[in-house]
């Protein structure tokens, strides 16, 4: 099918874009990379009255180091992050997750902000953002605020943003000393939506015990699912195989709520969460052991 007609605006500045979004309210959609929005328009699942195309706003394309760590403009292409040496160093978990996002041809166009704001429960970036304690910079005509990633996701394809608000930037804190990370997912074919995936961050104390842990899943709930009980179980523990497996088991049995589809039923997704959860915790711990103390 083909999209229904819409008003098309391609502002050159963020201020113009925010004015347009305020004027249209819920009737306008911001157009970032379009790799999720345009398919839904092609099938007429979405028929916005207007599109506010952000692709001409130069100020939204950047990767730089700043006071909150690695800052990415919302329109930064996923491919640009994948190719960025700065991103690999400053946000290695983010960098490791990039090749799992669809295909190169999609990442050439898809954006960091678009994926984060779309809040697809099968998307990699929201889980990574929570695992890294990232924060989102949200603007409207009248307001500007930083929202912690954890508070940004409020349900199925739902975020804390109000109509008229736009995600303009995201910041990923620098890795802590003696911390490690890992990302993994299982899809029927590389590039397909994952049946389950997980991001982990593990920080060790000087004595080698777990000081802080993060384990966040995708595709097993209404949004990214932070397994906080599992993470809390690990704090203060030695990172033994038994402890890591018990945490993954806790997460997979009690903290996720997978819905089945034709590719994988809930039981299989739980199984994947157990296996992938253990793997990412194990790899993250191994990397934390190799990481410099300071």
């Amino acid at each position, binding site marked *: 099918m*083909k999209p229904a*007609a*819409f*008003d098309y605006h391609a502002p050159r500045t963020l201020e113009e874009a925010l004015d347009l979004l305020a004027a249209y309210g819920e009737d306008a959609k911001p157009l970032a990379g*379009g790799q999720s929005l*345009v*398919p839904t328009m092609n099938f007429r699942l979405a028929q916005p009255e207007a599109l506010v195309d952000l692709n001409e706003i130069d100020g939204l394309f950047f990767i730089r180091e700043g006071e909150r760590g690695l800052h990415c403009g919302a329109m930064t292409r996923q491919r640009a992050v994948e190719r960025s040496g700065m991103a690999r160093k400053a946000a290695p978990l983010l960098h490791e997750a990039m090749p799992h996002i669809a295909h190169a*041809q*999609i990442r050439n166009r898809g954006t960091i902000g678009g994926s984060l704001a779309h809040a697809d429960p099968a998307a990699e970036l929201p889980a990574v953002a929570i695992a890294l304690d990232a924060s989102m910079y949200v603007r409207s005509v009248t307001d500007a605020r930083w929202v912690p990633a954890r508070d940004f996701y409020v349900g199925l394809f739902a975020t804390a943003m109000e109509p008229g608000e736009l995600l303009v930037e995201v910041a990923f804190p620098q890795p802590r000393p003696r911390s490690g990370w890992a990302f993994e997912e299982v899809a029927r074919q590389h590039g397909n939506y994952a049946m389950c995936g997980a991001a982990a961050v593990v920080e060790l104390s000087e004595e080698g015990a777990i000081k802080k842990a993060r384990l966040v899943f995708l595709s097993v709930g209404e949004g990214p699912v932070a397994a906080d009980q599992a993470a809390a179980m690990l704090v203060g523990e030695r990172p033994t195989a038994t402890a890591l497996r018990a945490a993954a088991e806790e997460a997979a049995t009690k903290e996720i709520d997978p819905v089945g589809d034709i590719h994988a039923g809930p039981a299989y997704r739980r199984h994947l969460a157990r296996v992938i959860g253990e793997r990412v915790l194990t790899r993250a711990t191994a990397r934390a052991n190799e990481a410099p103390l300071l």
Partner: protein
Amino acid sequence: MNQTIELFVNGKKYSRSIEPRLLLCDFLRYDLGLTGTHVGCEHGVCGACTVLLDREAVRSCLLFAVQANGREIATVEGLGEGPQQMHALQHGFWEMHGLQCGYCTPGILMSLVPFLEENPDPTEEEIRDLLSGNICRCTGYQKIVEAVQLGARLLRETSN
């Protein structure tokens, strides 16, 4: 309301008045008559409509033609002059039987052009990873992988 766009396709300048909802793939096929770009799934999954936008492979079914205003597009028509002067990649596909019905081939070729510029001597695994973004229902991919390997070799030889 129609908008006028100006863009380069395969090095040639075009100017057209179009509706904003017109997809780039349909613009290429219906407004410019460049039917080498094929339309398969219309939601970015099959890869048949892949073209280059400013030298990067993108899905032309997920772009509006208005977004290509002022940009450079390359389609399969720009690769070789014709059967007697095929692009090295096309020669690879011809020689190794890298296609049967050919519907997916233009998208695969356009995905490969920037891939091989960045990585002229890819491993089989890297080739298969790249091809994961293009669906072929005829070949089972083995012949396509061999075609890419030959095409990449021919490209390396001509660039030396």
